C-alpha cells in the first residue's frame, strides 16, 4: 500500500507528464528492462496483425480533464488543477456535425475528468439526444454532491435517457477510498441512492446505471459475472443500492497507474502478468475497433489510453476533427503499444467491460 497522492502528476511536476517518457518506459528503454514481447509480435503470432477498425459505432469524447477527484489510478491525470484542458463550444459543435453525418455512430460516450464540470455539458447532451443518438455519461458520482448546482444531475440524466456509467471499485469503503480518495465511498453511495430514487437501475424504467470495477492495486480483475453478482448482493444488502451491470476493467500502465506500479515495485510483475494473460479471443472485440476517441482540443485517437499517451490516429494530415474523414479512418491501422496488453488480458477489457 502507498500513501495516496492528492495532486495530479502535472501539479506535482512529475516527469511522467511527458508521454515520451511513459512510452520509453513501456518500450523497456527506461526504468525497467522488460524482457517481454511487443503487442505487435503477439498479434502476429495469432494472425491478427495489423489491427484494423470495424464499423465506427461509438464516438467517445474526452470533454475535459477537470475533475473534483484525484484518483490514484487515473490514466487521464485528471484533477481540480486541470482548468485549461476542457473542450470549448466550437469544438463541441464540430463534434455534433460529425455525429450527425456518420449514421453508423449510435452512441456518444462522454468522459473526462468529470464531464459534468464542462460548462457546455448539458447543452451538448441535449443536442446529441436531438440527433437520436444514445448518450453515455461516465460520471464519477461525487460530482453530483460536489455543488448545489449539480444536485439535479440525476433528474437531468433521467429526462434525456442518458446511460450512466460510474466507477465504484469496491463495495468496501477502504478499497474504494484507497483508490479514489478519502470520503469518496460515502458520497458515491449517496449519489447512487439519488440515481436510484429517480429510477436508475430500477426494473422497468429503462434508465441504465452501470458500475465500473477496476482493481484497486497491481492485480487483474476476476470474473465479471461473479463480481457483478457479489456487488449486487452487497450493495443492496448494505445500502439498498441497485444497478444494472458491472463492467470489469483492467488498469492499463499509463499515467498515474504507471506511476503507482513503478513506485511500488510492481511494474515488471504486472507487465509480465498482462503478457502471460494475453487472450487472442479478446482481440477482435477490443474497443479501438469500433470507437474513435476525441480529445478536449479536437484530436483523434484510437482510444482514450492512446489519447493520454498522445498516440494520434495513423491518418497523416487527418488527425483533427476539422479534417475528419471517415473513409480515411476506415483504412487506418490502429496504433499499438505495450499498454494494449491491458485490453487483451484474460477475459479482455473495454469501456463496456470484459469482451471474451
Amino acid at each position, binding site marked *: 500500500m502507498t500513501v495516496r497522492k492528492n495532486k495530479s502528476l502535472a501539479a506535482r511536476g512529475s516527469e511522467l507528464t511527458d508521454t515520451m517518457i511513459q512510452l520509453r518506459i513501456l518500450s523497456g528503454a527506461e526504468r525497467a528492462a522488460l524482457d517481454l514481447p511487443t503487442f505487435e509480435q503477439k498479434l502476429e503470432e495469432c494472425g491478427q496483425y495489423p489491427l484494423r477498425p470495424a464499423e465506427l459505432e461509438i464516438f467517445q469524447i474526452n470533454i475535459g480533464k477537470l475533475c473534483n477527484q484525484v484518483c490514484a489510478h487515473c490514466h487521464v491525470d485528471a484533477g481540480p488543477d486541470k482548468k485549461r484542458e476542457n473542450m470549448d463550444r466550437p469544438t463541441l459543435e464540430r463534434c455534433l456535425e460529425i455525429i450527425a453525418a456518420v449514421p453508423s455512430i449510435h452512441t456518444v460516450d462522454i468522459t473526462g475528468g468529470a464531464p459534468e464540470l464542462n460548462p457546455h455539458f448539458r447543452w451538448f447532451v441535449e443536442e446529441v439526444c436531438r440527433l437520436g443518438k444514445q448518450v453515455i455519461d461516465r460520471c464519477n458520482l461525487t460530482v453530483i454532491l460536489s455543488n448545489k448546482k449539480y444536485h439535479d444531475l440525476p433528474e437531468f440524466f433521467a429526462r434525456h435517457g442518458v446511460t450512466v456509467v460510474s466507477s465504484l471499485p469496491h463495495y*468496501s469503503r477502504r478499497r474504494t477510498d484507497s483508490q479514489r480518495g478519502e470520503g469518496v465511498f460515502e458520497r458515491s453511495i449517496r449519489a447512487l441512492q439519488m440515481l436510484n430514487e429517480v429510477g436508475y437501475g430500477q426494473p422497468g424504467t429503462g434508465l441504465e446505471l452501470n458500475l465500473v470495477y477496476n482493481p484497486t492495486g497491481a492485480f487483474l480483475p476476476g470474473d465479471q459475472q461473479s463480481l457483478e453478482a457479489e456487488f449486487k448482493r452487497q450493495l443492496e444488502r448494505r445500502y439498498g443500492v441497485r444497478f444494472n451491470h458491472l463492467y470489469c476493467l483492467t488498469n492499463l500502465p499509463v499515467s498515474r497507474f504507471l506511476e503507482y506500479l513503478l513506485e511500488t515495485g510492481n511494474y515488471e510483475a504486472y507487465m509480465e502478468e498482462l503478457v502471460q494473460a494475453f487472450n487472442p479471443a479478446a482481440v477482435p472485440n477490443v474497443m479501438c475497433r469500433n470507437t474513435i476517441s476525441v480529445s478536449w482540443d479536437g484530436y483523434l485517437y484510437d482510444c482514450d489510453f492512446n489519447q493520454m499517451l498522445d498516440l494520434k490516429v495513423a491518418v497523416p494530415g487527418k488527425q483533427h476533427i476539422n479534417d475528419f474523414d471517415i473513409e480515411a479512418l476506415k483504412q487506418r491501422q490502429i496504433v499499438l503499444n505495450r499498454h494494449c496488453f491491458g485490453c487483451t488480458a484474460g477475459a479482455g477489457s473495454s469501456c463496456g467491460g470484459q469482451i471474451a
Partner: protein
Amino acid sequence: MSNDHYLKRDHLKKFGEITDFQEELGSKFFEYYNSVMDEGALTRREKALIALAVAHAQQCPYCIDAYTQACLKEGADEEQMMEAVHVAAAMKAGITLVFSVQMMEDVKKKTM
C-alpha cells in the same frame, strides 16, 4: 554466503513443471485442482478465501502469495481475508484445545 534456501519465491512460478517428471499424474492433479477451484456451488471468491485460510493454517508461503492475489482478484477485501485467517486461527486453537480433554482425563485418572 550461500543463496540456497529450501523455499524460493520463483518455485511457485515453476509449479507447473512438476509434469516434467511425471506427466500423467501431474496433469491429472492440475485438472482436478482447476476444476475444484472453478465456480461451482461455491463461488471462486469463497473458494479463494477457504484456500487462503488453509494456506495460513498450513503456513505455506507459496499458497499465501497465490491466494492473497486470487482473493483480491476475485473481489474479496481486507476484512473478509482477515476473517478467513481468523477462522483458520480459531480452528487451530480449537484443535489444540480439544486435545486437552484427553489430558484432563489422563490427569483425573492418575491423580487422587
